């Protein structure tokens, strides 16, 4: 980082340059932490009722010793983890909660097995020494032992435990759903106050649970189906880009926030945001867009402009397959056009290399003057390159009993993609273009 800011009565040019670079670095740091590291906002936006519900539930477990279970359901990027963490943060401000409550965070991605999950629970409850080398007959025994060990000194009651299960639907794929069964069983019986909070992106998660597990679940679900309007989305855009009040250089932060507000009023920016809002409303994709716009802020370009937002939008919504098609050689492009013609004539039935080569040869003989008549092995190599790029795929997963020239394949592109790619192809020979446009090869 640059040297520190020194305040003198007549600041030299050098100091002011360093000051602006330090300020800029500070802006980047704050905003990047918000966009990349998902720093928690002060209050969850647009989710007030869900937040209250969750907070109330967790408080009842932590303070009053009531056992609960709840599922937070919402699409990816809706803010499930953010909501939970905000609730935990607020709850832990209470002294008694902070001292008593234990948290166990499990993830379906990491704990792929019940055995691993149990070890992780033991580890997070810091009970490895207590368990030692004991061998347990069943999962249930082990879990009950762990919870017994958490009893407070006077043996009258256990400490409340929060079990937080991310990617809850993946736990439902474990054998017999043992972990879920036992956790929910504990939450139903009066053994120890536990709160089982599951976070999942699947709306049909209850269908995945076995009957005995489902019956022990309290059927409490908190849905995070975003019903943000476009105005709220614009406000979110503005607040996500705004610098906080405790920014060291208040003059700079005021200018920056003013610039952001002006940006929100611009027609072009609103159009871009409308397009994004129509395709994906969640905060995660907004953060991605804002990060891409932020990367264009540099020494030469110290403030955000509308063109930055435009370029960021273009970058995030580029068509990958079109980009790959742009880099193919002319021979490979001709093969793709031949496949497109075969698809048009035979209505999407799978083809093999011989048929494609036949179409290609017809084109070479009748219509082409710029494409050289390549040898068959060279054409096979081009075909195999397309196979490697997964632009074509074998129909039956590549059974090798069939000779490679006769293996049936499908084209993984549709008509419009091929035609668009052709428009943008650099220095495309005209006879190839004509061939593509013509109706029947």
């Amino acid at each position: 980082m640059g040297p520190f800011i020194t305040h003198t009565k007549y600041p030299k040019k050098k100091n002011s340059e360093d000051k602006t670079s330090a300020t800029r670095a500070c802006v980047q740091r704050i905003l990047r932490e918000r966009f990349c590291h998902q720093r928690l906002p002060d209050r969850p936006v647009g989710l007030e009722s869900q937040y209250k519900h969750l907070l109330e539930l967790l408080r009842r477990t932590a303070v009053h010793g009531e056992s609960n279970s709840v599922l937070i359901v919402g699409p990816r990027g809706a803010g499930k983890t953010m909501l939970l963490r905000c609730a935990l943060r607020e709850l832990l401000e209470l002294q008694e909660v902070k001292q008593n409550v234990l948290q166990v965070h499990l993830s379906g991605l990491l704990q792929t097995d019940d055995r691993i999950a149990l070890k992780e629970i033991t580890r997070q409850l810091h009970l490895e020494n207590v368990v030692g080398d004991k061998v347990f007959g069943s999962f249930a025994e082990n879990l009950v032992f762990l919870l017994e060990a958490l009893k407070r000194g006077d043996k009258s009651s256990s400490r409340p435990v929060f079990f937080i299960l991310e990617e809850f639907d993946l736990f439902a794929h474990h054998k017999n759903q043992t972990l879920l069964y036992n956790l929910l069983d504990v939450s139903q019986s009066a053994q120890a106050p536990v709160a089982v909070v599951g976070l999942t992106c699947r709306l049909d998660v209850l269908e995945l649970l076995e009957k005995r597990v489902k019956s022990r679940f309290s059927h409490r679900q908190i849905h995070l189906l975003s019903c943000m309007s476009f105005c709220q989305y614009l406000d979110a855009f503005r607040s996500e880009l705004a610098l906080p009040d405790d920014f060291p250089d208040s003059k700079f932060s005021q200018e920056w926030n003013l610039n952001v507000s002006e940006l929100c009023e611009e027609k072009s920016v609103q159009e871009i945001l409308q397009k994004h809002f129509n395709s994906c409303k969640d905060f995660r994709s907004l953060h991605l867009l804002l990060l891409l716009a932020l990367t264009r802020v540099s020494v030469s370009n110290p403030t955000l402009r509308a063109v930055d937002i435009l370029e960021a939008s273009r970058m995030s919504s580029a068509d990958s397959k079109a980009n790959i098609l742009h880099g193919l050689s002319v021979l490979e492009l001709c093969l793709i056009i031949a496949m497109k013609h075969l698809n048009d004539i035979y209505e999407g039935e799978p083809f093999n290399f011989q048929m494609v080569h036949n179409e290609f040869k017809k084109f070479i003989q009748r219509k082409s003057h710029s494409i050289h008549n390549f040898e068959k092995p060279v054409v096979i190599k081009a075909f195999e390159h397309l196979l490697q790029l997964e632009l074509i795929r074998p129909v039956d997963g590549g059974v090798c009993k069939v000779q490679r020239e006769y293996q049936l394949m499908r084209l993984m592109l549709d008509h419009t993609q091929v035609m668009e790619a052709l428009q943008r192809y650099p220095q495309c020979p005209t006879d190839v273009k004509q061939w593509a446009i013509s109706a029947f090869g």
Partner: protein
Amino acid sequence: MELRTTNICMKNFKSRLPDVTFYSRESEAACGPRGSVVGFSGSVSEKMLSGLHYPGCPEARLRSLREKLPCREVQAGTLLAIMGEPEQYCYPSIFIYGHRATGKSHVILTLLKELELPHAAVSCVECVSAGLLFEQTLLALFGADSAALLPRLPSLSDFVRVYRQVCAQQPAKQTRYIVLERAELLRDMEANLLPGLLRLQELVDDNVAVILLSEIVWDKFRPNTGCFEPLLLHFPDYTKAELLQILSLDSNPSYTPELYSSYINILLGVFYSVCRDLRELRHLAALNFSKFCEPLEKGEAKEGNTHKLWRNIEPHLKRAMQTVYLREVSSVQWGQQQMDEKEATALRGLSALAHVELPYYSKFLLIAAYLASYNPARTDRRFFVKHHGKMKKTSFLKKHEKTSNHLLGPKPFPLDRLLAIFYSVVDSRVAPTASVFSQISSLVTLQLLTQVGHDDQLDTPKYKCAVSLDFILAISRTVSFDIVRYLYDFI
């Protein structure tokens, strides 16, 4: 101070400006695809400044970076901007895609090495199991002690646990990068590996970024229930001018760069419409340059006489396309062939099975197998029975080109049919001895015939002919048999 250094940076950049089209919104239709690369609008100087800019990095280092990354300044600049300063957070996962040899690994690894950022570069081809991937990552980021903490057959859970443990002792002052090449192989490993790696920053709660490099687009990676979407970055293919520029960097010091450029131009003229892979072109350029310079060394032509040089090298390059390019012939063999100067000798390629010598009856068995595979059974009578009487021409009319058997592939046939055709095709009388049957088995071993159906089916084994038309034509020529007359698709 900073303004002055950026001015110097601008001057240096201008002097080294290659003759390459910059992407801009106005000329987009001419040169660039929509949205593939961040298009810089505005003045030229702004483009250059936003090219490679890294705060706190000395100008000399930036200049050496630019020299090491020809024609990739824009992409390197974008990457640097996304990576940000080392103390700041980077986006948890970045997915870089583009064709082979477009410089993806080269750019990212050069940047990380030159700027001395902590990173782990792992190629997924080497990681047969996920455990190898975890071990290599921990080894590169934290050293051998942390890699030893992993248990045998580690899972992602163990990796995250060990990472957290080690990270608690060595918290990240700078962003750590994990670069995974050939990332498409991650899809075939355990199902939780790819989604877990994409969210690694959240799972380990550390300043780490995972960069995935692949040739396949992201749409084919996405798991069923979704995952954390990475930042997609495209490395476009090199244009013809850029390829020329990069290939010219390999020039031989004993000849002028203009001569080498003209050689590369000729090479691109032959190969550009077939292959745009930089690595392949470099290999071909290296192999054939000595042949190109032959007339100069012999004194037959001068450097300026490009036409004569072209006439000398062009047939040679065309032959290279059929042999070395297809890897039918090794580079050593190719080099020897150039020394020999006997241009008449055809190079024997790997798949040129014409040098397989078959016994007389085997050849006829193969021909009979080909006829059995590619002729429908109902036409056998017409072709192979001496007095078949009148057969209506209409029943042979092909309705649809698609049903041509040569397009659909060989059909299986039973052994009896093969023998029937064989006896009618062979001109002499052959007794059905064991030697004939053993020749059929040896044809199967040579993979000229494939056995279809179960091994246990001793009663009527079925076969398919696995040779191409060119091969069978060559074979039938050696026994003076006109096979085309007997093929249904060619009447």
